């Protein structure tokens, strides 16, 4: 009975033979049907998987394309009304020598303002928010909100191009990785003779990390050695003072900036003074 052929070859009645033949065909049909159903389920799963993959690839293409468009579109935009600070070529920067005045960076031979504020109808809002406040009064939401409104610290300042040893730190600052940049600058400080570019970048890092007092210490006396940076440093001092919680000093600084015609941060200074007042 196990073998249908053997069974069918036996001496059977015609009716029984026909019935057995139908059973054989039917069982074979059921077996194949089961097989095809099983494969159909696998096929549907495979098609689903391929569909998902296509969606992912399409999404990746859209994101990449969008990113590329945004990147090139941003590149074509006119320069924002942000201050420009020329910074001397770090490799040629002289060793820091308190009391001596560093040569003016190339292109700024005249003692004209090194920072210029492009004319703008309205002062745009800062692109980035202020850092997390530290120390006493760090929980003060009003101070945090105020800082967010006047945190004009875009990097790199227009015209600034770091080269040589500072390229890596410059890249990190562009990516707003201030901790990484600070660590990199610390390493450079150990191997290079101290110079104002390094101190400027470190001060800027500390400012963005919310370390107002330390930043101010780095900027101390720098405008005497680098008169071309004076306006930029004044603005940073105002922000640094506000970070430390010294609103009075900050207000004095901002008022002074706002009252100085031709100051690169005059508008920002007026805004800050108005908000602080």
């Amino acid at each position, binding site marked *: 009975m196990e073998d249908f052929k053997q069974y069918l070859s036996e001496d059977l009645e015609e009716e029984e033979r026909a019935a057995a033949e139908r*059973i054989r065909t039917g069982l074979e*049909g059921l077996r194949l049907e089961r097989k095809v159903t099983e494969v159909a389920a696998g096929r549907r799963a495979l098609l689903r998987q391929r569909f*998902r993959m296509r969606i*992912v690839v399409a999404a990746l293409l859209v994101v990449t394309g969008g990113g590329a468009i945004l990147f090139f579109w941003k590149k074509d935009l006119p320069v924002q009304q942000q201050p420009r600070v020329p910074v001397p070529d770090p490799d040629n920067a002289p060793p820091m020598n308190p009391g001596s005045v560093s040569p003016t960076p190339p292109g700024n031979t005249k003692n004209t303002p090194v920072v210029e504020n492009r004319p703008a109808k309205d002062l745009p809002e800062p692109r980035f928010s202020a850092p997390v406040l530290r120390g006493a009064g760090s929980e003060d939401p009003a101070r945090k909100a105020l800082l967010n409104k006047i945190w004009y610290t875009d990097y790199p300042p227009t015209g600034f191009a770091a080269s040589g040893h500072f390229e890596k730190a410059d890249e990190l600052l562009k990516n707003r990785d201030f901790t990484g940049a600070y660590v990199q600058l610390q390493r450079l400080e150990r191997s290079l003779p101290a110079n104002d570019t390094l101190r400027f970048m470190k001060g800027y890092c500390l400012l963005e990390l919310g370390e107002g007092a330390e930043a101010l210490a780095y900027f101390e006396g720098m405008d005497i050695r680098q008169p071309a940076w004076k306006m930029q440093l004044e603005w940073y001092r105002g922000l640094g003072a506000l970070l430390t919680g010294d609103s009075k000093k900050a207000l004095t600084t901002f008022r002074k900036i706002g009252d100085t015609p031709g100051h690169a941060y005059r508008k920002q200074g007026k805004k800050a003074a108005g908000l602080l007042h």
Partner: protein
Amino acid sequence: MRIQEWFSPPDPCRPYDSHERLFRGLQRLENAAILCLQMKALKPVRKIVRQYGLPPDRADDILNRSTLIFLQKIEDGNYQFLGHAPSTYLIEIARRVTLSATRAQKKTTAPLDGHERLPDPEVESDKRRQEDTELVRHLLDRLGDPCAQVIRLHHIEGYSDEDVVQQNMTRYTTVDSLKMKRSDCMKKLIQLARKWKISNNT
């Protein structure tokens, strides 16, 4: 599922790099071979279904039906492998199945000038097989367990007797007792089919 698998779905046709290998796989009823065959025929079948004016969701049914017919032909030795792509043959079967389905849909329309459309012998033979399949399905239900179960495990699901005994799929603990039971059950099934034939005169 691993991310790599997610991004690169397995290609069922990878093991079958020639028509002959695919045919051998189909002879052995390998799932991967059947899947490969269907994936190769899927797009043309969808196109045929669209051409014949059937709803697109019928493509899956038609592909399954055609695969079944093709596999039956291979089992019966009615398909001779001559070096051509098996998927080409499957697509041809699918065309006939689609045509038959279209005719069935338009059955209400009388043929012109009293000419009867000639039935497709392949599709007709498949219909007879389908009837036998339905009959066995029905008779197995009537037979009930444990007979239906022992027959299904061996003849439909393809388990070996050793596997059935080892994995305790039935109450039979030795291969011999299982075989004996199945033999009895098959005889019962055939007798049921005989009675069914007499009572229904089919």
